[in-house]
C-alpha cells in the first residue's frame, strides 16, 4: 500500500515540483540569464543583470547562458564563471548557428535550455541584444515579458519607467510560466567583487536542438565605431552635445572635453540626425540610458525624450544660451552662456585627469 503510494508520488513528482515553483516562487528561484559577450569576455551589462537577479529572492541560483562559436566563446565562458560569486553555473552553446546573435535561433535556444531545466526567471540586459531576443522568447513561452526593470521588489514584483520615464509603473507578474525580464543595467551597478569563486561550466548538448532546415535570416555585416573612449552606458562622466554644435568639426570640442575628463561622448537626436556623430551615441528614450556621476550637456534644449535618458545622473551640468531651456529644470549646475566660449574656457581651466 505504502509502496504503491510512493511510486505514484514519484510519478507526479515533476508536476509537483512545478506546482511548488508556481505557488511559492520565493522558495525556489532559479534564474537563467542570457549573457552577452564580446572578444572573449563577458559584457559589463550582463554582470549588472546578475546583480539584479540577486534581488529576486534569498536562495536564488543563477545560470549564465553563453552562445556563440569557437575559442572566443570558450574564453568568455571561463571568464563568466568567475564574473560574480552568485553565478552557480555557466551553460555554453557552441555552434556555428550562434556565430551571430540572430533572434530566431537564439530565442529557440533559450526555450530549448528552459525545457531541460525549468527556470523560474529568464533575464537579459535591456540592450539592443536583449530587447531583440527576449520578447521573442517570451512569446514562444506564451508569457508577458517586462521591459526595462529598474527595481525588483520581490520575485514577481517590479518597477519600470513608462512615458519616457515620466512615470514609474509597479507591476506584478501573475503568470504560471517563467517570468521574463530585461534589466535596465544603470539601475543595478556592480560593486567591486572581493570574493573569488568559479562556477561550473557545462557544454549544452545541441544534438536535439531543432531549427528550421534553412535559416530564414542571415547576418550580413556590421559597422562598428571603434573608439578608445569609455563605453557610454557605463562611463563615470558623459559629455553631450546637441544641435547647437552646428557641425562635425565643432563637435570635436565635445570630444576634447570628454577626453580631458576621461568621459564618454553623448549626443541628442538632433545632433545625430544632423550627422555630427553616429547613432550609437544618442542618449534618451530611444537611445542609450546613462547614469554617470557627472553629465554635462552643451547646447541641449532638454526635450522630454532626451531627459528620459539622463535623469538618473548624479550631477547634471547644463550650458545653454537660452535661460528658459527646459534642461535647466533638471540641472544641478546651470550656466547661461555661449558654448563656443564656455567649452574653450573649460578646456583651459579644468584640472587634468589621468
Amino acid at each position, binding site marked *: 500500500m505504502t509502496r504503491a503510494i510512493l511510486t505514484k508520488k514519484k510519478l507526479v513528482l515533476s508536476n509537483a515540483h512545478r506546482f511548488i515553483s508556481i505557488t511559492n516562487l520565493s522558495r525556489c528561484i532559479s534564474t537563467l540569464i542570457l549573457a552577452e559577450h564580446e572578444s572573449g569576455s563577458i559584457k559589463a551589462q550582463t554582470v549588472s543583470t546578475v546583480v539584479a537577479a540577486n534581488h529576486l529572492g534569498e536562495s536564488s541560483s543563477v545560470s549564465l547562458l553563453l552562445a556563440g562559436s569557437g575559442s572566443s566563446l570558450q574564453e568568455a565562458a571561463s571568464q563568466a564563471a568567475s564574473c560574480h560569486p552568485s553565478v552557480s553555473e555557466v551553460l555554453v552553446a557552441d555552434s556555428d548557428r550562434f556565430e551571430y546573435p540572430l533572434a530566431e535561433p537564439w530565442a529557440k535556444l533559450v526555450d530549448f535550455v528552459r525545457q531541460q531545466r525549468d527556470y523560474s526567471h529568464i533575464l537579459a540586459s535591456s540592450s539592443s541584444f536583449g530587447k531583440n531576443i527576449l520578447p521573442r522568447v517570451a512569446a514562444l513561452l506564451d508569457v508577458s515579458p517586462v521591459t526595462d526593470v529598474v527595481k525588483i521588489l520581490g520575485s514577481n514584483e517590479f518597477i519600470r519607467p513608462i512615458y519616457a520615464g515620466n512615470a514609474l509603473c509597479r507591476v506584478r507578474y501573475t503568470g504560471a510560466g517563467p517570468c521574463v525580464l530585461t534589466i535596465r543595467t544603470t539601475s543595478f551597478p556592480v560593486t567591486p567583487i572581493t570574493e573569488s569563486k568559479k562556477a561550473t561550466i557545462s557544454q549544452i548538448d545541441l544534438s536535439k536542438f531543432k531549427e528550421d532546415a534553412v535559416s530564414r*535570416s542571415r547576418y550580413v555585416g556590421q559597422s562598428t565605431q571603434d573608439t578608445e573612449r569609455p563605453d557610454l552606458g557605463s562611463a563615470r562622466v558623459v559629455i553631450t552635445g546637441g544641435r547647437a554644435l552646428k557641425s562635425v568639426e565643432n563637435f570635436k570640442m565635445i570630444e576634447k572635453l570628454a577626453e580631458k575628463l576621461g568621459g564618454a561622448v553623448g549626443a541628442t537626436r538632433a545632433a545625430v540626425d544632423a550627422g555630427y556623430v553616429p547613432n550609437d551615441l544618442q542618449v534618451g528614450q530611444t537611445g542609450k540610458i546613462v547614469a554617470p556621476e557627472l553629465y554635462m550637456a552643451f547646447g541641449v534644449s532638454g526635450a522630454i525624450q532626451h531627459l528620459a535618458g539622463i535623469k538618473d545622473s548624479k550631477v547634471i551640468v547644463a550650458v545653454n544660451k537660452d535661460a528658459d531651456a527646459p534642461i535647466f529644470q533638471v540641472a544641478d549646475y546651470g550656466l547661461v552662456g555661449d558654448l563656443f566660449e564656455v567649452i574653450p574656457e573649460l578646456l583651459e581651466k579644468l584640472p587634468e585627469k589621468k
Partner: protein
Amino acid sequence: MKILVAVKRVVDYAVKIRVKPDKTGVDTQNVKMSMNPFCEIALEEALRIKEAGFAKEVVAVSIGPPQCVDTLRTGLAMGADRGIHVEANSSFLPLTIAKILKSLADVENPGLIFLGKQAIDDDCNQTGQMVAALLGWPQATFASKVVLDKDKQFATVDREVDGGLETLSVDLPAVITTDLRLNQPRYATLPNIMKAKSKPIKKMTLEDLKVDIKSDIEIVEVTEPPKRKSGVIVSSVDELIDKLKNEAHVV
C-alpha cells in the same frame, strides 16, 4: 504583395503627462492623442515600398477604443489603402496585441508586417518580436534602412544596435520594426485627408479573431518619479569649476 502596418494611438509625444492622483495610471482625458511616432515611420516605409512598385496594398491596423479610427484615418490620409479597427475597450498587453496581429496575418497573408520599435507610452519594445515569434517568421528590429529584393523575396535591413549598425537579410514574409532614422514621415495633405474619408475601415471584434486574452501582468500602481532637487545657476566658468570640484567632488 500586401503590407500590414500596426499603428497605435498614444498621448502625443510633446505632451507633459500627469500621473493620476489615485495612482491607477496616467491621465489621458482631454490630452492630445496622436499616432505613435514610430508607427508613422513604419507606415511611411510601407508606402514607399508600395510606391516603388514592390507592394500592391498597404493595410493599417489599430487595436483599441473607438477613437483609434481617427488614428487610422490619419494613416489613410498618409496613403494607406484601407484600415482595420479591432475594437477593444481595455488596453492590452503586447502579447495579446501580438496574438491579434498574428490572427489578422493568418487571414490577410501579408508579405511584410511593419511595426514601430516601441510605443512612447508603455515603452515596451516587444510587440514586433512577439508577432514574429507567433508566426514563426524572421524579424528585423530597430531598422534604419530597408531594401527589398522582390525577385528573391528577401529584405536587407540595417539595424541600429548598441555598437553601431548591423545588417541582416530576412526572407519574406518577415516582421520589421522601425527606428527613428528610417525615414521622415510625410504629412497628410488636405485633399488626401478628404480622400481618406471614403477609404474603408473594417471593424472587427476579438470574438471575430478568436484571440485568447492573457493578462499575466497586473499594474499595482503608477507613481511620479522622484523629483531632482533644484539646482543653481552659476555665473561663470570659474564658479562652475569650483562647484564641481569642491561641492560635488566630480572633477
